């Protein structure tokens, strides 16, 4: 598949990348591993005039531990992060989701920052231009309505990051740098719920670091997919338990992960959370399994993941 024309620039620092973005007057896209961006550009779903490569920025490739936080550079690959001994020891939910992300080869290329900021997906959206033209452009492509839920004036695409849900259960924060300066926000506040612009990012902002409080947790990640070797999640559930409390996050269904805080992991509390997550999930016919099955699996996976955490006693 041939790529459309664009310019390529490589930045050596965050400041240089932001300056390059400003020069391009908003018509640029940042490139990290490219496992999400390049296919989108090939399909004409992203049309950058310039691609700004962030892989030359050394400071974004570092994992460091300071002041009670684990600071993960956004360009750390999923594979390197998975093999960091601290992740396995302190954050088993994150280890589980990293291990379940796509396949090993793509884990070696894809970065944690890119995994968090991947575009939302839909069977009617991630298609060639010819396919989409024949069908009529949907809401997310700049059209007037959704092609899956007829008459709906909203987008129902799915946010398919495996690692964002597990990071949310670990109360992770993200550091952003852009033309207007730096800011740090909670990861769960990064989602807009709007398919046309899924992330609350200012133009030109770069995700530079992921910060996780250095607290030992028990945890697990469970994922529903058709092919275990590579697929995106059709439902993903992450659980992290600290002391008696548990934090659960459901991803893969809809535009943003959903968080549930449990005061304890007793049967009644787990059942209540599973019922609530089931009721909240609104899958539609835009993935490879039926919405009814995916909805049901939200509750099933939630209970299964908590059970796994309790059994393994990690």
């Amino acid at each position, binding site marked *: 598949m041939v790529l459309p024309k664009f310019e390529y620039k490589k930045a050596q620092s965050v400041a240089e990348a932001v300056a390059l973005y400003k020069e391009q007057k908003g018509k640029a896209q940042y490139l990290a591993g490219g496992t999400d961006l390049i296919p989108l550009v090939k399909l004409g779903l992203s049309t950058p005039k310039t691609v700004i490569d962030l892989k030359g920025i050394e400071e974004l490739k570092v994992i460091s531990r300071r002041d009670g936080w684990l600071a993960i550079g956004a360009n750390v690959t999923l594979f390197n992060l998975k093999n960091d001994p601290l992740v396995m020891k302190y954050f088993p939910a994150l280890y589980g989701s990293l291990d379940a992300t796509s*396949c*090993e080869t793509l884990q070696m290329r894809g970065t944690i920052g890119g995994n968090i900021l991947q575009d939302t997906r839909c069977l009617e959206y991630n298609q060639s231009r010819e396919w989409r033209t024949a069908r009529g452009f949907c809401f997310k492509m700049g059209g007037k309505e959704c092609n899956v839920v007829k008459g709906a004036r909203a987008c129902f695409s799915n946010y398919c990051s495996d690692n964002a849900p597990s990071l949310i259960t670990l109360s992770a924060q993200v550091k952003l740098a852009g033309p207007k300066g730096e800011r740090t926000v909670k990861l769960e506040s990064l989602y807009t719920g709007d398919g046309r612009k899924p992330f609350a990012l200012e133009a030109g902002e770069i995700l530079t670091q992921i910060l996780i409080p250095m607290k030992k947790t028990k945890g697990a990640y469970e994922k529903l997919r058709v092919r275990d070797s*590579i697929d995106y999640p059709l439902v993903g559930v992450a659980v992290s338990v600290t002391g008696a409390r548990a934090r659960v996050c459901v991803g893969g269904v809809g535009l943003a992960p959903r968080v549930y805080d449990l005061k304890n992991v007793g049967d009644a509390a787990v059942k209540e959370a599973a019922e609530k997550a089931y009721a909240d999930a609104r899958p539609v016919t835009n993935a490879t399994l039926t919405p009814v099955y995916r909805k049901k699996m939200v509750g099933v996976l939630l209970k299964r993941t908590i059970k796994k955490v309790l059994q393994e006693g990690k």
Partner: protein
Amino acid sequence: MKTMKVTFQINDEKVTLLVKPYETLLETLRERLALTGAKEACGMGACGACTVVVNGIPLRSCLVLAPEIDGANIVTVEGLRKDGKLHPLQEAFMEKGAVQCGFCTSGMIMTAKALLDRNKRPTKKEIVRTISSNICRCTGYKKIVEAVEDASKRL
């Protein structure tokens, strides 16, 4: 057209080329260097038929932009033969009958090579895990796993 100059090492040879900024490494290999071992199947990074080893890491060359490889060290399936002798993986793939239609083979071998380079004696489970990055639509996985196991013993 605006082109970019890139210099890299490929199969122990130094190459300097002018590439398009929006050209993939796969296109560079196949169309500029006539190295047609890496194949294009899905073109979207899903299948692994275009896998080559860049700086020791197996990469899907259909997702890598040519300007990104400036300064890199690339090994393709063509570069595995040393002094007229095939790589143990290539020998094992032939002997174990791990090739059916052959379209996935070079990607499979390069993915397996990167595994054996970082882990000389992988367990069967590790081989299966690594090989599952690549798709074989003839579904000949059993023989492929056997061939990688066999090759690891020959190294």
